[in-house]
Structure formats: structure tokens, C-alpha cells
């Protein structure tokens, strides 16, 4: 049976035609199991096939089908059953031979191929693209290979980093509890101890975000495009159209937060010990300077 590139098209045919189509359809499908299909199964399958056939194809599908049919035909030599072949044979042509004088090295056996240019890429662009694509694929493969071995290591490292980050934030909150002035007076963020200032800024940011969202929710009733000719800068600020100026950059804090997690945690732990005689690992505030009873300043010491 002839190989077909796409499911047969055409109007839904009367029964015998249908049978033909279905015969050719099955080729593309996985081999049938030995079990006999039930009536229902058969009905559903036929229904599906009919649906697939009646569905109008998209332009892209049509183009792809046309392309496939063309490429298929272009790569298939004319069969020896063709009339032309038989006529040539009568003139003494042997299959596989070339035309012309037998000694001619220029004789072709295959027709010239057709290449349709589909873009305006310059000469050499196509092969350049292919080369880049190949390189990229190779690059990705290499990377994947390199990573496969280090996967466990990487996951472990990531988990550790996360844990240390958590400990760091915990330590900050602890320090805040120790250092926050009694009475809860607001202290400007930049006056707060650098070691837990991060916590303050985080809170401020969250608050700002919450307020912005609230403003937005309230202002939704007003068209975003509405421009009040009389509103001034303050109105706009009030209406949340203009974001409040963010406080001065805190370079000191940025620098501190930019450090490695372990480094930050170590600084905090040491500070707690020195200033507050508090061991982060024992979770205990010692009375004396020597902090007797604490096995050491490292986490490992507290196992």
C-alpha cells in the first residue's frame, strides 16, 4: 500500500471509500494488538477519524502538508514502471546509468535539487545559522553533562544557604528584641544598629507595598487615563499616582547585606556574644563575661 504523507483528504466518501481510507490510515498508527476491538472501540475510533478528516486544516498545517508532499516527491526517483523509463529502455538506457557519452565525467544521474529561498538572508547566512544552532546545542549538552555530576553538591549547597539565611534573620529579630528601646519609640531607620537595620527596612518596604496596593484598590474606581487638569503634585502623591520618594540610599546597609550569608551570621553571632553575652547557639544569655557553660562560638561546638 502506498505510503502517504498526510491523512487522506476529500469529502467524506460512501462506505467502500471510507474503508479504503481507513486501511491507509492504520499504517501510521501503532501496530494493532492481537485483541479484537469491541464494537464500541471501533465506533469511537471511526468517529475520531471522521472528526479529524472533517476538521478544516489550519493554514500552517496545509503549508506543512504541501511542503512535505513536495519534499517527498522531490526525493523520489521516477519509477522504472513509468512510460518514460520504458521508452528510454527501448533506446538502450540501463537503469542507474547516465546520459551522453560514456566517458563524460560531467554526466548527472540525479536532477538538480530545488531550494526555495524563504527569507532575505545573505549568501552564507543559512549555514551560519546552522553552525550557530549546532554550537548552541553542543554548548547546552556540555553544560548539562557538567552539571549532572555536581547536582547533589549543588542542591546541598543551596539548602545550606537557605538555612543560614533563615538563621541570620532569626538572629536579627533576636538582636532587635534585645536592643529595641523600651517604650517603642520610633527610631529613624538609619539610626538603628546596622546589624538589625535590615529588618527595619524590610518591614518598611512591606508596609509601603501594602499601602500602594490599598491605594490602587481604592483608585480603581477612577479611570487610570483620567487626567485632572487641576491636580498638583501633592494631589498626585495623595492619590498614589506618584510614588513617595524612597528614603535615601543606605549604602552601609546595602554593603552589609551584600556579604555572604555565613559572614553576616558570624558577625551577628559574635556581636551578640560580646555585647549581650548571648550565645545564639545555646539560646541563652549568660550572666558573666566568660560565658561559662557555653561550648564555644561555633555552631559545630554545640552538637
Amino acid at each position, binding site marked *: 500500500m*502506498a505510503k502517504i504523507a498526510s491523512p*487522506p*483528504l*476529500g*469529502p467524506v*466518501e460512501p462506505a467502500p*471509500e471510507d474503508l*479504503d481510507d481507513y486501511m*491507509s490510515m492504520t499504517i501510521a498508527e501503532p501496530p494493532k494488538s492481537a485483541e479484537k476491538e469491541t464494537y464500541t472501540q471501533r465506533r469511537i475510533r471511526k468517529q475520531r477519524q471522521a472528526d479529524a478528516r472533517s476538521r*478544516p*486544516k489550519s493554514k500552517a498545517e*496545509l*503549508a506543512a*502538508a*504541501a511542503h512535505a*508532499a*513536495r519534499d517527498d*516527491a*522531490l526525493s*523520489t*526517483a*521516477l519509477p522504472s514502471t*513509468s*512510460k*518514460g*523509463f*520504458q*521508452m*528510454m529502455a*527501448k*533506446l*538502450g*538506457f540501463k537503469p542507474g546509468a*547516465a*546520459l*551522453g*557519452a560514456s566517458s*563524460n565525467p*560531467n*554526466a*548527472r*544521474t*540525479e*536532477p*538538480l*535539487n*530545488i*531550494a*526555495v*529561498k*524563504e*527569507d*532575505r*538572508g*545573505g*549568501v*552564507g*547566512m543559512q*549555514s*551560519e545559522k546552522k553552525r550557530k544552532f549546532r554550537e548552541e546545542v553542543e554548548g547546552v549538552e556540555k553544560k548539562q553533562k557538567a552539571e549532572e555530576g555536581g547536582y547533589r553538591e549543588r542542591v546541598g549547597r543551596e539548602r545550606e544557604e537557605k538555612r543560614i539565611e533563615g538563621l541570620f534573620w532569626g538572629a536579627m529579630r533576636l538582636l532587635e528584641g534585645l536592643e529595641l528601646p523600651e517604650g517603642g519609640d520610633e527610631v529613624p531607620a538609619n539610626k538603628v544598629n546596622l546589624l538589625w537595620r535590615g529588618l527595619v527596612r524590610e518591614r518598611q518596604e512591606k508596609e509601603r507595598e501594602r499601602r500602594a496596593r490599598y491605594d490602587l484598590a481604592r483608585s480603581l474606581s477612577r479611570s487610570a487615563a483620567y487626567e485632572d487638569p487641576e491636580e498638583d503634585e501633592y494631589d498626585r502623591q495623595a492619590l498614589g499616582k506618584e510614588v513617595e520618594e524612597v528614603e535615601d540610599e543606605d549604602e552601609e546597609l546595602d554593603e552589609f547585606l551584600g556579604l555572604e550569608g555565613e559572614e553576616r551570621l558570624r558577625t551577628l553571632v559574635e556581636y551578640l556574644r560580646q555585647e549581650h553575652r548571648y550565645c545564639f547557639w545555646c539560646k541563652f544569655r549568660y550572666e558573666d563575661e566568660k560565658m561559662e557553660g557555653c561550648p564555644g562560638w561555633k555552631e559545630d561546638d554545640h552538637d
Partner: protein
Amino acid sequence: MDRSSDSQDHGRIKRQKTEDTDSRYFEEDDDDGGVKLGNFGQAVEVKLKKEDLAKSDRYTEGLDTSVAKISKKKRKREEETDQAPNPYLAHQYEETPKKKELDPRANPYLAHRYEEPAEDEGSYNGYSNGYGRPAKRMNGVSNASSMARFPRHKSTAAMARNAEDGPNNPFSGQLLSSQYFSILKTRRNLPVHQQRDEFLQMYQKSQFLVFVGETGSGKTTQIPQFVLFDDQPHIQRKLVACTQPRRVAAMSVAQRVANEMDVTLGDEVGYNIRFEDVTSQKTILKYMTDGMLLREAMNDNNLNRYSTIILDEAHERTLATDTLMGLLKEVAQRRPDLKIVIMSATLDAQKFQSYFNDAPLLAVPGRTHPVEIFYTPEPERDYVEASLRTVLQIHASEPEGDILLFLTGEEEIEDACRKIRLEADEMIREADAGPLTVYPLYGTLPPSQQQKIFDPAPPPSRNGGRPGRKCIVSTNIAETSLTIDGIVYVVDPGFSKQKIYNPRIRIESLLVSPISKASAQQRAGRAGRTRPGKCFRLYTEAAFKKELIETTYPEVLRSNLSSTVLDLKKLGIDDLVHFDLMDPPAPETMMRALEELNYLACLDDEGNLTALGKLASEFPLDPTLAVMLISSPEFYCSNEVLSLTALLSVPQVFVRPASARKRADEMKALFAHPDGDHLTMLNVYHAFKGPEAQASPKRWCHDHFISLRALQSADNVRQQLKRIMETHEIELVSVPFEDKNYYTNIRRALVAGFFMQVAMKEGNSKTYVTVKDNQNVILHPSTALQTESDWLLYNEFVLTTKNYIRTVTTVKPEWLMDIAPTYYDITTFGKGPVKSALQRTIDKVRRKEATKGGRR
């Protein structure tokens, strides 16, 4: 090399193939197969003169260096001696003492051969090609000419030179004019003259000679004259033929040579192109298209009229040239007296040598200025955009000199011109650049506009301002067919539109493809014609080396060979399989050709010409069209089919300028026939022939967006075809226009020729599938078709990113099976929608007949 651009003549009217791109459908056709007549005639003529006069213009790259060296020395010597202060004394300078010695007159042993020139001014030398010469000659009027009793095939350059110096015309016997002598002087400055002796020796020794020299070396005009003096066809009662791939070249070169020889065109020197024979009984040198020589060979298989055949521009490798070369190889064996000179550009000389049994080679170097070649560091993303950028950059920063940019097709060229003009205007305003005039150049451009490219570059816009320049944006017409002086910069994106044929899906289409290295060199050479130039290649050097093929594939590999096979049959070549072509095509191409001719009943199953085949080969048409035309009387519409055949043989009749697409479409709708494009074209033709249009054809065509030129050439073709029909007693019939079958008859007649180009609708979709090849195709947007039809006959299968069928007409499956029963034999079809549709048709017809029978 794709030299199909301009009006080539294959001796056949080619069916019109048009280029295409998605929705744009007013397109040029580079391969118009020679229907256009001499639009370039004048231009080329003028140019040729300049070319010949020009001291140098050749591109020496790729030349055999040893040859180049030798002739450089020679040239130097010649140049020294040639410095004649007085042009009227030029010929005297030519005679250096050394050369005098060679003059056989000076040789006492040969003295008896040379009579003193007769004073009798009007006398003939008495020799011409001898077809019924005037009685005068027979009376033996004194052999006035200095070349009388030249030893045939033993003459020397000096003898010939002597004869050329007059005072009487060695061929006509007339006293030579002063104009003759002034031309003679410049002729002798041409590179080929330096090697006249060498040429003669080789020519005398060998049956085949390969002569290499590029345009401007003077080979096309001079070599045939060299041959005349030695071969003396007038004594042999034969002719010397020089073939040209292009009609225009044949005409203009013949005119030039007639001037050089001081004779009237059509007397001693003439030309013969399709539909135009300017020769006479006196003619001894005939310029002709290679297609014409092939036609002659069909009736005279040994080419007995000719003593020497010169194939010029053989490197262009047109279908006709290749066929001729194969034929001449065979004829040469049968006729040892026939001499054959193959003239080619440098690049594939060795291939020619080995093909012609290791023929000797003579090369004349060209004299060109060096051309500096630049490559891009990276491949370009968009070659059009890159070429515009390059042109503007040249204009901004390079010294004076004109620019030639090569692009692929009309639409692309017009678009580029528009953009360059816009940008250049801005450059003038903002950067004080010089003025820049931009000219498009392509085959379908009206002649008046083609002429404009020869206008000089614009002057500076103000005194002391920067110099202006012109920029020509051209198809590969400007690569070889036509020479424009003043070009200093060439921009070469590396693409051209080339014809391609594939027998597996039977498609013949014009596709944008990368050019060959040979083409790239040729393009670069265009920059060095007047002074040292620059060529900007918009690709990397690596791409030049790796991606470009060496030489463009010859036409024989890129064409449907059904006409060629018919020609070969007519030429008496029966063993088509072993016919010695220089580049034999794939066997499948030949299979398809044989098959097509067999289905058309031009060949029988044994491959012999049938009566129909013989008749079809009388027409300068594709076999499909010829068969359609011959069978049209059976359908009572040969008048209409004749018009239609003519219309299908000329460029697109509908004009659709970018600026007025909507209006053009509206006008086209006026002519639209619901059954399709063929009938629509016929409507146009009939309207054009009507009194209203004939009152003022130019105006009418302009108003209706119709190409007057296309219709005029259709008229011309129609006349020629009609004559052939009359000779072969093919009736010209019509039914009255009111007859209800008027159009049906025509549609049925179309089927008689085009039954192998039919597509069937696929289900409910808009797509069609081609019968037998099963290719999915859609209707070209330009179609005038308004009826829903399951079956369409098409003129063309156009390949782009989509597969289109173009110029379509509705047909009925009953007709197909009735008119082409062998092709539509249902048992030969594989399972599929086409087969089932045909089966249904058979059943329907059977039922109808059964009911009819029952009624009886």
C-alpha cells in the same frame, strides 16, 4: 551561467514563465524567451562601437598566465608602433619593415599570384557565395581584389592585411571609403589583431578550435572576418556562420561588421534571427541566433551550406548552444571539410577543449583595470537592506564614479530604487552629499526607460559642490548582456533569479538562487571597464569559496527538455540516450520529456516521431502549445486558440503598478471571465482588437492597465504562427460568438494540449492537488476565476514559499477522459481522491448513457 535574462532566442517561442512572490503578483519575467524585440538594439549598437574602440576593458582574472604574459609583450610592441599621429596614415604605420618581408607580394616566387589592383572602380572581384551571382562576375571581370587567388587555408595575416588596405573592397570590389580606413585603424588596435597569424595557423591546422577572449577583445566582430579571408566562402559557394545566443546581439553585431567591411547590411554580411532574415544571394558572413542555426540543421542535417561555423558566447551555455555543440560534433565526422570555431569567455576553456577532442586553444587576454574586491566580515541578515546601506555608503564616502547594484527581480529593484532615492535626498539635505540619480533596469522595463541608464551622471548641484553620480539597480541583464560605461563600483549581494526544472514534480520555475563564482567574477569585472574599480560582495570570503558553485549550471540541466527532444528528433538524432551533450542532464529529465511527447502523441512508443510530432516541430513553440494549436480546428476554435497561444508566449499583458494596484485590479475585473484566466486574456485581446481600442491603442492600454508592448508582440507572434498554420493547411475556424458553446469549445481545446497540467480540488478546502504528481497547490491571487470548480487546468506551477498554480481555467473530468484517454486511463492511477473522482465520473457517464439507452 544564467544568461537567460535578456531576449535570447532559442528558435522557439518559449511558454511564458513568470516569477512569483506571495501576494505581489505584478512581476517581471527575466526569461522572456526572446519575444521582445530589439529594445536594446540601439543601445547595444552604440555600446559595441565604444567597446570596440575602447582601448581595453577586460578582466584578466583566471586567464592562463603564460598566455597573458606573452601577449602583454606583444601588446607593448604594438602599442609602440601604433602610436600613429595621423589617423589617415595609420595603415602605413602598420606595415613595419619586418612585416613587409612577410608580404607574399615581396616574395619573388609568389609574385605571379598577385596582379596589380585594377583601376576599374566598379568591378567585382567576382566572388561571393555564388548563389546565382550576377552575370558580370561570370564574364570574368578582372579579379580586382588584392585577395584574389589567396591560397585557401594557407593565407597569412600579412596577406589579409594587404588585402584589407584596399584600395578596393576585397569582397565587393567597390572602392573603399575613408570611413572604412578610419575604422580599420581602430580595429587593428583590438587585442585579437595581435594574434591574427597565430589564429590562422591554428585554424588551418585543426577542424575544431577553441578561442578564448572576452567581450571587447574584438572576437565577435574580428574573428569571423579573419575566417573570411582564409576560408573564402565565396569561392566555395558557401557561407560562414557566426551564432549568438541573443537576437539583439546578432542584429547589432552584423550591422557593425557590415560597416567595418564597408558593405551594405544584407549583402555580403547579413543576419538571420527568428522572423527576420536579412541576407541575400551575396551573403558570405551570416550572424544568426544559435536557435536559427538549429532550425536550419533540421532541414539540412549536415549543414552543407556552411564552410565554417563559429559558435560565439559558448560559455553562456544556452540550450540551443549545447544542442548545437552536440550536433556539430556529429556533423564534423561526416563533414571533414567543415571548420568549427568555439568562442568563449576564459573560465571553462579547458572543458570545451576536452569536449571537442582536445581541440587547440588560443587565448587573447583582455585589458582591464584592476578591481579591488571587498567582502563582508559576517554573513548578512538581509541582503536587500545590506545592499542599500552599501550603496549609500559608497555615495557618502567614495570618490566620483557610478554604482551598479545587482538584485533579483522587478519588485525588489523598484522597491530598492525608491528607498535609495529617499535616503539620498536626505543625505543631500543633511550631509551635503552630491546628487544621486537612480535607475532601475530589468527585462520588462519599457525601452524608453531602459535607455535612461545611458544618461550621464548628474552634475554637482552647485558650482564646486560634490560631484553627482548615477546608480543602476539591475537584474543580471547588466552582467553580460549589456555594458554601461562609467561604472566604478559594483555591489553584489550574490543572488540572481534562475530558471530551474525538476522532472520529479515537473516544475519549471524562476527561483532566487545564489550565483556562481564565475558570475561573481563577471559582476566584479563590470567595475573595471573605464578605470580601476571596487566590487563590494555582500558575503564573506569563506562563503564565496564554500557556498558558491564554480560555474552556473548550463540551461540544459535547468530546463524541461521536451522541445529539445523534439528538435533532436528532427535533427535526425535517434540515439537520444547517448547523444554527446557537454553536460548530460539527469536521465529522469529525458524520461519526462519522452513521456510528455508520447502522451502528446508526438512520439510513438518506440520513440519515433509521429506525423503530429513532425508537424508540431514546425512550430517555434513548446510541444504542449503546438499540439493544442494543431488540434484546435477539431474544436472549431482555431482562431481563438491561435490568439491564446500568442498571448501565452509573451510577457504578462496585465500591468499592476505598485502605485495603482486597486485601480489596475478594477480594470482587470472588466475583462474577467468567470471560467478563468485564459478566457480573460482572450477577452483582453478581443477588446484590444475592437474599434474603440484601435482608435488609440496606446491610450486604451494605458487606461486599462494593459501592456501595449505585450499585446503588440502577441500580435506579431500570432502573425508568424498563422503563416505556419497556413503553410501546413491547418484550418482557421470559429463559431459565432453567440453560439452557446463558444467558450466551452475553447476550454476543451485547451485540454487537448494542457491535459498534463490539471489540478483537482481537495475536499472543501481551498487547496488543489495536481493530478499524478499529487502536489498541494493553491490558486494564485492574480486569478480572475470566479466559478467554483473541482477541476482546473493551469498554465504554470509556480514555486515560492507556497505552491501556486497560475493562469487557470475550469475544465470537466469527462473532457479529460474523452480528450486524453491514455493519460486519464483510470487503471494507471494509484488509490486516492483523484482516482475515486474519476471513477465517479465514469459511473455517471455510464448511468447517463444507460438512461438514454433505456429511453430509446
